[in-house]
């Protein structure tokens, strides 16, 4: 392959036979879908959109991109791509740390796991080779113990361990892969797919070996320019000065609460009376002990905390999403218990967003006496108990392990599930941030804030300031951000780079690393192609007209909080605009669009 930046090597691991084959990257695919998310989706698409997510035909891809492991700022992300057992859509979920860089330094662009092993195994990756090793002694262990054991066996230096915990082994539908103890590929149940394949861990050993850019001088200039905008002290990313760097993602808690966009008690309210007690500012004052970072990132947004007493734990990271899902959304104001439950989720390997949502749904079901179990709002002891039961699929936990949508249906009231395409919504109430409504509804992996992060425009003003309560223009904004984020996820750069960088900075760095000229128009068209491939996959998997929706709570029950009082989310109006700019027919990609984008 002529393109720079790639290792030009992927491993296909057949877990049924235990064999490993190696191949290069198809250059046309690399040009069309880049790497990480885009190329991973192409591999999953080629495996067939109708496979059983928990069967041997599903492909589980660990992918990096052409910028991974290089000097490019914020280039430490890994994408795990597969067909989701939670949603039935294609899904990709990313984590930070050093595993993605090490996979590149070990000589790989991706690891593609197919088939199903009869016995537990883990994959050991070093120096361009993959070896399957028995994992009987690790099966049944939590992620923290698995990481400790494998680091002792293969490290500790220059080693990353990505593992599943008991939740993945027990096929909890929203089980995650967790890298280096705490960096989760949280969403979509990729860990459940790992469990179905009896793949316990991926261990990568590699010394730092930065790939050389194809155009050295251009790279220096592009890198300098991108770094300058990230370091600008007026931006959220500015190291030790910007809101994201100083307080982490949980700097958002107070602002979403102020504007009436903080879903509370299963989104029955839109602000939480104790939000300031859980917010990043309070965490910094009380329990913060360290600010860890990822490969090539000066922002250091991770927030390591230490609590004492009943919920004593030392963990990273106290993020906005779980602080909301296990806090405001469950009516829970106990700061320490949230850290404790996040760590339990990291150890069991369970998506803390989906789990917080399944809990809040169960709390509403209990309040409405739909279930016999008494699960009160804001009862941290009960929440801890349910965490154990769910990961082990015991008692009511067996229902909760199925995810919010399936559990609500089993409880007899599907309307109390705050989900889209089977995945729970994250921490932005679309009555106070309208763009999130269309972004959730049209996300290809089920409700998600990271496919199109519209609060960048609605709160921060990037790429332009837009009124959070206006629906006008949000369809086009969502398309733009979906396409842009599809590209950054395929490089694979941290999503937070988009708070400072734009298409120009991205295109310049890609061009310098690969040597293949890319304009901003090329970049957005590539993102559009990736987004349409995902949508086409979903269409073939059975998601047709009517699959882009929101729970009625957001479209019919007005907000009662200051900032968004009286508002509902005008989804139908935004959806009409969105389909028009996408060129889709009621959520379905027409043949003409597939040809225009050279997908078929």
């Amino acid at each position, binding site marked *: 392959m002529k393109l720079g930046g790639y290792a030009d090597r992927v491993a296909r691991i057949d877990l049924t036979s235990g064999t490993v084959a190696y191949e290069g990257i198809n250059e046309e695919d690399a040009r069309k879908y880049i790497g990480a998310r885009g190329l991973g989706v192409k591999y999953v698409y080629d495996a067939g959109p109708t496979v059983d997510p928990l069967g041997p035909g599903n492909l589980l891809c660990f992918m990096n991109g052409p910028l991974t492991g290089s000097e490019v700022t914020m280039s430490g992300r890994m994408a795990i791509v597969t067909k989701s057992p939670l949603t039935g859509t294609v899904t990709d979920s990313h984590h930070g740390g050093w595993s993605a860089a090490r996979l590149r330094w070990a000589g790989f662009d991706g690891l593609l796991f197919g088939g199903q092993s009869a016995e537990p195994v883990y994959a050991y990756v070093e120096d361009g080779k993959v070896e399957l090793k028995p994992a009987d002694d690790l099966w049944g262990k939590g992620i923290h113990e698995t990481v400790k054991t494998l680091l002792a066996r293969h490290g500790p230096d220059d080693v990353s361990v990505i593992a599943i915990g008991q939740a993945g082994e027990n096929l909890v539908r929203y089980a995650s892969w967790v890298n280096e103890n705490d960096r989760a590929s949280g969403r979509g149940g990729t860990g459940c797919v790992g469990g179905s394949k009896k793949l316990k861990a991926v261990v990568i050993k590699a010394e730092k070996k930065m790939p050389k850019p194809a155009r050295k001088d251009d790279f220096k200039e592009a890198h300098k320019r991108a770094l300058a905008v990230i370091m600008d002290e007026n931006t959220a990313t500015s190291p030790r000065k910007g809101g994201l760097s100083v307080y982490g993602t949980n700097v*958002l808690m107070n602002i979403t609460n102020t504007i009436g966009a903080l879903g509370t008690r299963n989104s029955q309210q839109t602000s939480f009376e104790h939000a300031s007690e859980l917010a990043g500012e309070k965490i910094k004052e009380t329990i913060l002990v360290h600010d860890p970072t990822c490969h090539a990132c000066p922002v250091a947004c991770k927030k390591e905390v230490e609590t004492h007493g009943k919920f004593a734990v030392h963990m990273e990271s106290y993020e906005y999403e779980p602080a909301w899902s296990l806090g405001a959304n469950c009516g829970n104001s106990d700061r320490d218990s949230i850290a404790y439950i996040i760590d339990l989720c990291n150890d069991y390997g369970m998506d803390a967003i989906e789990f917080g949502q399944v809990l809040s749904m169960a709390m509403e079901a209990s309040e409405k006496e739909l279930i016999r179990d008494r699960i009160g709002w804001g009862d941290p002891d009960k929440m801890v108990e349910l965490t154990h039961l769910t990961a082990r699929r015991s008692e009511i936990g067996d229902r909760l392990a199925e995810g919010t949508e399936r559990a609500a249906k089993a409880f007899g009231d599907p309307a109390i599930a705050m989900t889209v395409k089977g995945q729970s919504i994250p921490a932005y109430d679309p009555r106070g941030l309208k763009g999130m409504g269309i972004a959730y509804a049209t996300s290809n992996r089920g409700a998600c804030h990271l496919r199109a992060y519209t609060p960048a425009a609605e709160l921060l003003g990037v790429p332009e300031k837009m009124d959070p309560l206006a629906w006008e223009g949000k369809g086009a904004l969502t398309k733009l951000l979906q396409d842009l984020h599809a590209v950054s996820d395929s490089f694979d750069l941290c999503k937070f780079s988009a708070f400072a960088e734009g298409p120009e900075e991205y295109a310049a760095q890609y061009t310098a690393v690969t040597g293949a000229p890319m304009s901003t128009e090329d970049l957005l068209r590539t993102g559009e192609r990736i987004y349409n491939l995902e949508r086409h996959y979903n269409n073939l998997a059975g998601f047709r007209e009517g699959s882009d929706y929101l729970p009625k709570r957001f479209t019919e029950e007005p907000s009662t909080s200051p900032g968004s009082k009286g508002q509902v989310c005008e989804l139908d109006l935004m959806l009409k605009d969105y389909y028009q700019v996408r060129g889709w027919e009621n959520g379905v990609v027409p043949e003409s669009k597939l040809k225009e984008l050279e997908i078929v």
Partner: protein
Amino acid sequence: MGTVRLYATLRDRAGGRPEIEIPWSPGEPVGTLIRRLIDEEPGLQGRLLDPRGALVPFVSVFLDGRDIRYLGGLDAPLNGDQEIAIFPAVAGG
């Protein structure tokens, strides 16, 4: 007299104070209150208003949860019992 709430890094610029009492009269524009706030906490100089007196792009000022950019900007009139909150650039995910 009313309470202005400061968040995130703006607190550090204001000597760690999360809330500051500032006098205002009903009907006064919010811009006047912000200038009084800067007089009270000079560390906020250049963080809220640019040299021409306009609101700095990434800063958000909310009156009862609504960004003043959609209420008439710095000319938006204050009333007696509004919640006033000011944020610097914040983002996450």
